[in-house]
């Protein structure tokens, strides 16, 4: 079955991103197609490459990036949410005259239309939040 996932909270502060990751992992293991994970609200904070979590803790961003690389899961950060929270790729840096980027490998920034599209195309949408 084709599944889409929505993540509304950032890493570590709430369990949402962890629950979503475990769910996606289990769905892939069961042979389902996870077509997209859309990160909205504080969820976009999962996509920064600048975190350095404690050595004895999980690395939430790297886990997501591996999922994108190994399983071709499309990880999309909402552009409007990124602008409010300071998530920047090359294109956004140019458009908004920012002097640095912080987006991690495997994530892309795009519009809210990608969420609606995922909800239309997937058989089920599962939301994780606060």
């Amino acid at each position, binding site marked *: 079955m084709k599944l889409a996932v929505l993540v509304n909270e950032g890493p570590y502060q709430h369990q949402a991103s962890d629950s979503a990751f475990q769910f996606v992992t289990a769905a892939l293991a069961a042979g389902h197609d996870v077509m997209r994970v859309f990160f909205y609200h504080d969820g976009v904070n999962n996509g920064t490459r600048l975190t350095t979590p404690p050595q004895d803790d999980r690395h939430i961003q790297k886990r997501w990036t591996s999922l994108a690389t190994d399983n071709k899961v499309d990880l999309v950060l909402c552009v*409007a949410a990124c602008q409010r929270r300071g998530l920047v790729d090359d294109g956004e840096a140019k458009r908004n005259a920012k002097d640095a980027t912080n987006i991690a490998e495997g994530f892309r920034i795009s519009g809210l239309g990608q969420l609606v599209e995922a909800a*239309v195309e997937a058989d089920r949408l599962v939301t994780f939040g606060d």
Partner: protein
Amino acid sequence: MEDDENQGGEIKKFLYVNRRQPHGTVYALESLETVLIGAAFDQDVSMLFIDDGVYQLKKEQSPDVMEFKNFSKTYKALEMYDVEKVFVERESLEERGLGVDDLLIDVEVIASADVKALVDQNDVILSF
């Protein structure tokens, strides 16, 4: 079955469930942004306001006193986006001492017992 229907790329029915106050968090504003973007997709859209979500439709909001964006006028524009099915739960209004006269827009008031039927009619539930 429902699955076959959806896989054909036909029109899906979206229900946006709003359960939070307008200004304590950004969810209400960002939920509304999703509705407006979603309208461009030519899907069948309904909005449901329950619990503290009914406060989103309260008249006379002045978020400018807190330097917040006043997005409450956007609810009045929903009709222009062909979002015409706006439901509000009676019990949620009553618990908060509110009536339909307190609301910014015309809505269809439903009973708590009717929420399940509304949910059952839709394919996708978006709740922030």
